[in-house]
């Protein structure tokens, strides 16, 4: 008798073949400049259940450019492991041809040139077309949103997430979990969650006072699809009050809580679940570790770290799917569930090429209706990029967008040193492109945007760098928060990622004088996105807008201020 493990492994091989052939196919079609919607959607419907996963949309309603990272280091057991490969290594791992559509979607090289050929990605009206097409083949497919949906744009900020709720409701998801949503403040979150026509899930969302499961969120919900009893268990971002301002949602506590996750899996299995899906905002490495500790999860739909993987990663018998960010990808996972168990799967990471996939007209109209009240302010052109400059953020250290933001902090706030958060959201701007107010908000929008200006000692700056570095490079994923390294302006340093906290950072240099930072001396520091209540200063988008309007044309120069060791 063939075991479930054999089934999964053969299914994995089938997926690999399928994935490779479909990716290779893109490359060939792209070479002929004839990539079509049918090519992107082609999928041999498999088994009896379909899952559709979107995550980390960050309120990007419209098509955008999004450059994937050139540096995404793994540490400990994850050194060099998926998803911690980039560029040529990534293409080699999946058999993706240089210069192909898949290379453009998944890797960073030649980004500006490929962006000119392949155009923008994402747009929820294109996502709607893809979801409609999958539902045409499998009418009862489950649509699951991994969260970071109600955050990240001009309209989302000004409507306190209402624009995204309206648009997502039209897509009719079955369930959602959460992260940045909580930065709308707990009252607004309760309002919006209370009105959702689908499940708001998080087994790890607790009442902070009583340390009991929150009454505002369900741990899981059952669905009956294709004759299969499916349990979807939610896992919200575990480190909300640490990575984001806890004072905005003081009633809530989070954490990984993997023992409770095991209890929930056991509970749903006892109630007859034949398929257990975890809709997670843990981040990929945390999900991998959790999959090895919690028994009985069939599929983890992974979000938070914005990784896009053309094939799932298997941990034991758990399939982990990573679906990118900013509306750039939709994952489809078809499953064969028989005799109360998952017997095989087929998967496709569908890139949303905005010029190839037709927008769904009703959704286009709905999106425009959300944007109309703000259209004039958003469209104002503040500056443009130079012909050799791409602005991007993703990567473990400063992206070019971060450099622009740090320069704005230094010059507009007359500071020695700038600190900017290492978040992973924010679309890219291609060479010679106008930079609108909307573009600036896309990389700065948040509910705690104030730019502080303060003095910090050299010693304290060192402590901050060490602290953030450990949140990224601690060898145990459960101690990582999933962002990237804090971005710095006016400051250079050396980082050895393999050292323990307190010993990673050295050679901290004040760039304007070339001097080594004196631990006892105070320096003027400007930064934003402080998690502390009562932070004062102008919002970051005004500071960046003022800087860019003075520059007119934004040109980036290679940033060599961070020396990375141990990569």
């Amino acid at each position: 008798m063939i075991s479930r493990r054999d089934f999964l492994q053969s299914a994995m091989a089938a997926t690999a073949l399928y994935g490779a052939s479909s990716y290779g196919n893109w490359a060939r079609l792209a070479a002929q400049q004839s990539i079509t919607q049918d090519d992107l959607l082609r999928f041999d419907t498999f088994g009896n259940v379909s899952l559709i996963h979107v995550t980390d949309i960050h309120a990007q309603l419209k098509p955008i450019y999004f450059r994937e990272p050139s540096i995404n280091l793994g540490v400990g057991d994850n050194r060099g492991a998926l998803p911690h490969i980039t560029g040529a290594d990534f293409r080699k791992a999946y058999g993706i041809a240089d210069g192909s559509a898949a290379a453009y979607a998944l890797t960073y090289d030649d980004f500006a040139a490929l962006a000119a050929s392949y155009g923008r990605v994402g747009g929820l009206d294109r996502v709607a077309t893809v979801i409609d097409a999958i539902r045409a083949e499998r009418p009862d497919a489950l649509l699951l949103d991994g969260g970071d949906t109600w955050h990240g744009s001009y309209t989302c900020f000004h409507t306190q997430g209402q624009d995204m709720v309206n648009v997502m409701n039209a897509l009719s998801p079955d369930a959602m979990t959460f992260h940045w949503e909580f930065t709308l403040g707990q009252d607004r979150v309760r309002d919006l969650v209370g009105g959702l026509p689908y499940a708001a899930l998080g087994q790890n969302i607790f009442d902070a006072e009583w340390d009991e499961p929150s009454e505002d969120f369900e741990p899981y919900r059952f669905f009956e699809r294709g004759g299969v009893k499916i349990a979807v268990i939610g896992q919200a971002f575990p480190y909300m009050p640490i990575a984001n301002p806890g004072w905005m949602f003081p009633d809530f506590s989070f954490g990984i809580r993997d023992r409770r996750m095991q209890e929930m899996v056991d509970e749903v299995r006892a109630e007859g679940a034949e398929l257990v899906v975890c809709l997670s905002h843990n981040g990929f490495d945390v999900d991998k570790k959790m999959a090895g500790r919690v028994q009985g999860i069939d599929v983890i739909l992974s979000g938070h770290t914005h990784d896009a993987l053309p094939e799932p990663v298997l941990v034991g018998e758990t399939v982990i799917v990573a679906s990118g960010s900013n509306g750039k990808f939709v994952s489809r996972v078809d499953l064969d569930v028989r005799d109360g168990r998952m017997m095989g799967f087929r998967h496709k990471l569908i890139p949303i090429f905005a010029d190839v996939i037709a927008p769904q007209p009703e959704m286009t109209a709905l999106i425009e209706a959300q944007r109309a009240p703000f259209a004039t302010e958003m469209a104002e052109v503040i500056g443009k990029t130079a012909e050799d400059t791409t602005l991007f953020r993703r990567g473990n250290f400063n992206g070019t967008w971060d450099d622009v933001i740090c320069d704005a902090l230094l010059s507009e706030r007359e500071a020695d040193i700038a600190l900017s958060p290492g978040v992973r959201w924010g679309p890219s701007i291609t060479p010679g492109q106008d930079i609108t107010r909307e573009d600036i908000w896309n990389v700065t929008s948040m509910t705690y945007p104030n730019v502080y200006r303060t003095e910090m000692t050299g010693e304290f700056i060192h402590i901050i760098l060490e602290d953030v570095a450990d949140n990224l490079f601690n060898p145990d994923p459960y101690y990582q928060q999933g962002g990237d390294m804090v971005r710095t302006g006016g400051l250079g340093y050396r980082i050895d990622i393999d050292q323990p906290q307190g010993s990673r950072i050295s050679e901290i240099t004040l760039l304007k004088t070339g001097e080594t930072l004196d631990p006892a001396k105070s320096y003027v520091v400007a930064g934003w996105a402080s998690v502390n209540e009562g932070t004062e200063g102008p919002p970051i988008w005004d500071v960046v807008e003022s800087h860019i309007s003075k520059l007119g044309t934004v040109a980036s120069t290679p940033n060599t201020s961070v020396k990375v060791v141990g990569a």
Partner: protein
Amino acid sequence: MNFTRRETVLLGLASVAATATGLPAFASLTDDAIAEFTGGADVGSGGITLTTPEIAENGNTVPIEVSAPGAVSIMLLADGNPRPAVATYNFGPLAASQSGSTRIRLAGTQNVIAVAKMADGTFQQAANTVKVTIGGCGG
């Protein structure tokens, strides 16, 4: 500006002070307390479950929970606090369960340790690292 980061800054400083030496500053006090509790007996590692957050949401009030079925006594320690002793739970023969939970203050990143004395006189130990961080920028 009002730099309200002050409190977290102090926590951060404590954290670095503790980790910079490579060993928790008060480790020997902890070792002494464990030696006193066990009378120097060997300590095993099964049959005791210690639940702590991996990263504290607030270092001033960290929820911890310990359970050791069959224990007569469980001692809790925080090895990076100036006074590592947290609590010792004693269970009588009629106790329905041998578990306890409380909230503790942690001066910085450190190990929380639970040692259980079992009914047969053997000892079991569990330890978890709890990280206390400045925090800031999640993706």
